[in-house]
């Protein structure tokens, strides 16, 4: 298990990448190198400037840029907490608890299909990078409502071949990711993050194809470190387990859907 830290970061760069999503780049406020983080892990972000936000907000690790020592977070404005977070000016201090959770299977080898939907594409960028660096062939399948909602496509292209599905057909193939032609190819492992209905559809498809599949859950959580037992998922083997600790990534064989 990776060591956890509570640490101040400085917001060094901020960019809106889709109508709903902002990319935040954070560097350790007191310098020093970033903690070791695994693809699929997440951080708990403190939201200082919002009257109505009490708890931290869990945000998955989008990318770890060892060149400029920054942690990337792709943040979707979902409520007052995340809005207040992306409204931080560059230079602001943001407190994080990190890294949290288990992460995706990043063992090299085989053909990988990484499927992301909406802001769910976030953790797949770092995963793809780590896999590609280890010589594993990576195919990304990115889904969104329309072309404008696709985040960081140019970044994904650096680490693998990119397939795209949009519901309105404005880019890539029209329809849901599960309807994309690449789903007919064979893969050794599918790793997926996105809206629940999409992940369930992907899980169904993976079972049909007999392809192993991991999904990243985002159950509502308070602590993020396995103490409050609020974010539980009912598993086939362990009953209610903490998504923040035994997850957020689960092999679909452990899930009851």
């Amino acid at each position, binding site marked *: 298990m990776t*060591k*956890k*830290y*509570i640490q101040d970061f400085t917001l060094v760069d901020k960019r809106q990448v889709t109508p709903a999503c902002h990319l935040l780049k954070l560097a350790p406020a007191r310098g020093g190198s970033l903690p070791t983080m695994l693809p699929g892990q997440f951080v708990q972000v*403190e939201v200082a400037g919002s009257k*109505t*936000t*009490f*708890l*931290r907000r869990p945000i998955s690790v989008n990318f770890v840029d060892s060149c400029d020592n920054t942690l990337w977070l792709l943040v979707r404005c979902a409520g007052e907490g995340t809005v207040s977070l992306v409204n931080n000016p560059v230079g602001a201090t943001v407190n994080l*608890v990190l890294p949290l959770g288990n992460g995706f299977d990043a063992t090299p080898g085989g053909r990988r299909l990484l499927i992301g939907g909406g802001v769910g594409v976030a953790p797949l960028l770092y995963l793809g990078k780590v896999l590609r660096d280890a010589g594993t062939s990576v195919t990304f399948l990115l889904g969104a409502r329309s072309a404008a909602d696709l985040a960081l496509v140019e970044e994904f292209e650096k680490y693998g071949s990119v397939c795209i599905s949009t519901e309105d057909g404005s880019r890539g193939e029209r329809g849901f990711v599960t309807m994309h032609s690449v789903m007919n190819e064979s893969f050794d492992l599918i790793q997926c993050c996105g809206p629940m209905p999409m992940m369930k559809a992907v899980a169904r498809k993976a079972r049909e194809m007999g392809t192993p599949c991991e999904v990243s859950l985002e*159950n*509502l*959580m*308070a*602590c*993020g*470190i*396995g*103490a*409050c*037992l*609020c*974010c*539980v*998922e*009912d598993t086939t083997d362990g*009953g*209610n387990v903490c998504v923040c*600790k035994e997850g957020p990534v689960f092999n679909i064989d452990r899930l009851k859907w």
Partner: protein
Amino acid sequence: MVDLSVKIGELELKNPVLTASGTFGYGEEFSDFVDLSKLGGFIVKGTTLNHREGNPYPRMVETPSGMLNAVGLQNKGVDYFIEHIYPRIKDVDSRIIVNVSGAQVPDYVAVCEKLAPLDKVAAVEINISCPNVKQGGMAFGTTCAGAESVTAAVRKAYPKTMIVKLSPNVTDVAEIARAVEATGADAVSLTNTFLGMAINTETRRPCLSTITGGLSGPCIRPIAVRMVWQVAKAVKVPVVGLGGIMNGRDAVEFMLAGATAIQVGTANFIDPSVTGKIVDYIEDYLRRHGFNSATQLIGAMEA
């Protein structure tokens, strides 16, 4: 040199800072953030006779300056605790207190009898105030008779320090406190969470699978401080205060109201290192205000 130590009955604590049951896991989850040996003690999560799966998801919703939870005492049961968890945590240089829950009186007794032989379990906290279980729990904590029945039975079976955790969901908490004092409690702790609920107005469905849950956080601190003040005036046994303590100032507020020790709960979710900071704050506060012992703060409010 200030003395931070306080006593809960026979139990000496190196300082007044404890962690609230269900908010600090078994301590291990926080070892990356705080030196456990720095704490007065930690109260491990609600333990029952048998394994409990707890309530279905969703179990949590954020509220103004607080949160509702409906975990429902999920735990692997007392035997699992004794076999697998106790050995891992018993050597921590701090006090281990086990929070005990049950559906009926004999459950409480059975769990406490199993815990009694464990050298490093310094005390039990009897939870008669969990709002998230169908049987038992809060039912015992909202009447004097119910509270007495559990307290008296456990007292017979458990020789070490027994703290009884009171429910705030009552008309007169002092009356309940007097009842458990009279039946053998060495201390009372309050408050447990407040019964609350929230509705998602867009789906028109309750936010929790159980509809109602327990409200915690700074939102309810003013009510908890008032109850601690009332109870501290009503009983002679030590009072352990909790309810929305977010920082050292809040901890001092509870002690001034009459608490001998305090518990940090929900704040652990927001700053997992907060308990250590609270110990430091209390020490600094005592210095700034010219006290030489934490015991001088207990009930020191000048009305």
